[in-house]
């Protein structure tokens, strides 16, 4: 990916890509603009030729149609040129893909500062935090419905990351397939029953790409919307989750408070009933 120079073209037109807040989202957007310009040029040339020929060679009894069965050299040319462009595009894209999805890739994050477990169901997201001890399936775990809080990555004035804040989600489903989709993080992953998938992202406070001046957020600039992107039944469209990005200290404080409450509630329960 590093080989592709970023394009300067990033319109703030209302009907365009939403703003992006994740590090790999930037690379995805760069790929998008490359594809956009390649396809736009192709589109104009091809449709232009089509319309021009239709106009120029409209029926005219004074003329005879050209008799030809084709041209071998042209065929080779218009096979090879697109092939080179497209394969180059594919090869360049594969490193971004591997970085986002392939855990065996060297560029896949090695460290995750935050890990949560999300179990989707008809029609809600159950988000479980390991609590203050950082371990799952202990008494201080706590679960929130349709609310995901994560720490954001602090950046300096130029937008450089000061400290990594990688978030890992262990994603699964208890009934049908759902799909975790957060447009402003450029993240989508199916939640599949019978299988736990790992996904990761990092969220930043400021967008890495200017977006349209449209209301993408709910309360303030750090609440993103998460939607379900895989048909899951009659309430498919209602699986809306709020993803809130907080400063690290606020996040830690919140986790400490919630897990203390969970621990107290667990202690208050009669023995032999862990509440799980």
């Amino acid at each position: 990916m590093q080989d592709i120079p970023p394009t300067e073209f990033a319109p703030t037109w209302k009907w365009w890509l939403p703003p992006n807040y994740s590090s790999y989202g930037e690379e995805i957007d760069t790929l998008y603009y490359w594809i956009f310009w390649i396809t736009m040029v192709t589109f104009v040339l091809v449709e232009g030729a089509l319309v021009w020929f239709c106009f120029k060679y409209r029926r005219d009894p004074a003329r005879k149609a050209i008799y030809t069965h084709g041209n071998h050299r042209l065929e080779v040319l218009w096979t090879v040129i697109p092939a080179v462009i497209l394969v180059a595009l594919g090869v360049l894209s594969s490193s971004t893909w591997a970085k986002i999805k392939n855990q065996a890739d060297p560029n896949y994050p090695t460290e995750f500062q935050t890990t949560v477990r999300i179990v989707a169901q008809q029609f809600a997201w159950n988000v479980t935090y390991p609590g203050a001890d950082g371990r799952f399936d202990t008494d201080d775990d706590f679960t929130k419905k349709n609310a995901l809080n994560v720490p954001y990555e602090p950046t300096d004035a130029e937008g450089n990351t000061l400290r990594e804040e990688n978030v890992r989600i262990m994603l699964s489903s208890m009934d049908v397939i759902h799909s975790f989709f957060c447009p402003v993080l450029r993240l989508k992953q199916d939640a599949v029953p019978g299988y736990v998938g790992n996904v990761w992202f990092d969220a930043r406070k400021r967008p890495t790409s200017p977006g349209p001046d449209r209301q993408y957020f709910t309360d303030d600039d750090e609440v993103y919307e998460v939607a379900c992107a895989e048909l899951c039944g009659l309430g498919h469209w209602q699986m809306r989750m709020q993803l809130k990005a907080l400063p690290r200290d606020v996040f830690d404080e919140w986790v400490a408070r919630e897990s203390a409450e969970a621990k107290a509630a667990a202690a208050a329960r009669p023995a032999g009933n862990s509440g799980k």
Partner: protein
Amino acid sequence: MSTPAPAPAAHGPVAAPPDAAAHGHAAAHGHAAAHGHHEMSFLRKYVFSTDHKVIGLQYLFSCLFTFLIGGLLALMVRWQIAWPAGAPPTEAQVQALRDQGLEGEELRKAEARIDNDRPFPILGEFLWGEHLTPDEVAAGKESRPGRFGDNNGMMPAEWYNVAFTMHASVMIFLVIIPILTGAFGNFLIPLQIGAKDMAFPFLNGLSYWTWLGGMLTLLASFFVDPQGLSAGAGWTSYPPLAGVVSPSAGPGQTLWCIGVIFIGTSSIMGSMNYLTTIVNLRAPGMTLFRMPLTTWAAFITSILQLFATPVLSSAMAMMLFDRHMGTSFFRPGGLLFNDVPVPGAGGGQVILWQHIFWFYSHPAVYIMILPAMGMVSDVIAVWSRKPIFGYRPMVYATSAIAGLGFVVWGHHMFQSGMNPVLGTTFMISTIMIALPSAVKVFNWIGTLWGGQITFSPALLFALGFVSMFVIGGLSGIYMANAPFDIFIHDTYFIVAHIHYVLFTGSVMGIFAGIYHWFPKMFGRHMNDLWGKWHFWLTFIFMNGVFFPMHITGLGGYPRRYASFRGYNFLEPYAGMNEFMTWCALGLGAAQIIFFVNFLRGIFAGPRVTSDNPWHANSLEWSTPTPPGHNNWPGPVPTVHHGPYEYSRPGLQEDYAPQWVPMPKAAARAPAGTAEGAHEGPAAAR
């Protein structure tokens, strides 16, 4: 009328007696006059027929009927997207209330009494009960329940799922595949290769009746649930949503699986028949590389169908077993529906279904476009009076699309949790498929270059196909790019892509085919002017419906959402949704022109005055019009050269029918194209 002057009757081995050609509405009419052998009963001749032309027309009429159903479902889907229940008062309405001096609690009460919900015209109240305003409800008015229960006339979210599921199922299984392979394949293959009928005429009839059984089963699924809940898990029917009996997937889903098995069986029978026919029954002199591209496309499509469809049928059988016989192919352990364990579930793989399903359904996408590409090639050659530019490259490109079509299915599963290394593989193979598609587009444009282009309705639709297929193909590059697909997967971008390929692509190709071969099918002409109106309105409105979907998709608008209300990032698209719906209504209305023109053409269109009204070269134009039983009254014609000898120097006419030997003056082809006449563009080397 922009049609060329009628051809002199000199071409063609036999000109049928005019009155035999004249009877319009059923292909086999010409039969009695053409040659009188044994008489058949009406049932054998027109209903349980084994004549490929009658079967082709049966498919055509059935598919045009289901096209209406699929279109109606599409309009209901669009209506729901634009105007879902629970529309809030508009700003103007609120302002009007404020102007009356209302505020606070009073204002809220008054706002609650505003009713902006719009039930789908006529059907909404028929299906989901009388629509009452809040005032009428407050006054204690009793609403009249509808056929599918009482929902104040508005479509419930679960029925919306049914609407788009059945829209896709109907359009794919009951319209596009059968009209391309069943109607055009049946009608054209034997005529174009010079066969008196299919290799297995009885199997051919059986294939239609099996398909019809599937069609009735699919449509019956609307009537097995008190709320009219047919299959509602998407046409892809991903388990566990579709694989477990639940309110979301009741008896309608079961009937859906059975219907698809019927249709798959019909496809397998049809494709075997076409393959055997094309391999064995070609007329003398009809080498493979003298076949028109329509037949080539049908040939390659049949190979796809024969290898892919059994996989679909077995997938459907496995799903039926899962649903009703306790197997667990697609049901993993620990499955909880509404917190209750699903009995018998365990050990299955959810993603296995996706692999099996897309192993059929991706090739199916090419089953739905290759035949249209073939027909469009023929239409462009005839109406621009030019040989196909790069005939052999066209054949190779079609084969390459078909071959690659079997190794790209994983691009539907980039976000499914499939091994990401496979994602890279499928991305590269998917990108490769853009190449043969591009080659075809370039060759069509090359065919137009230097032609004598007549803008008949058939050619307009063919041009519409080419220009819109370019958009569908280019948006495919976005989808194929795995990293960018993370963002646009399952958004309206893919809805735009599939409709640019299947509606503005395949359906335009189908219309081109109907306008082009109508005179041969029915012995009469459709009205050209109406055809042009039909084209332009369709062209404008379909872009109005489908182009904005790219934009909503780019904004991340997820597909299959019954409502956008409650999402901050979706609310701004409300206006665009309404615009697309208005265009969809216009698109639907434009098809009325077609249906009127089509029916009028069959019963009252001007009769053809020639067996070859378009001055075309391929063999179907050498038959009596419409062709009788056995197609040619005498022996089948002998083929002398390729099908695209248009505007060949040395000829008086600008065409050279395949069944007429090349006159001496033109037999020696001009330099540089010497062998072109006989073996395609080998000469170009």
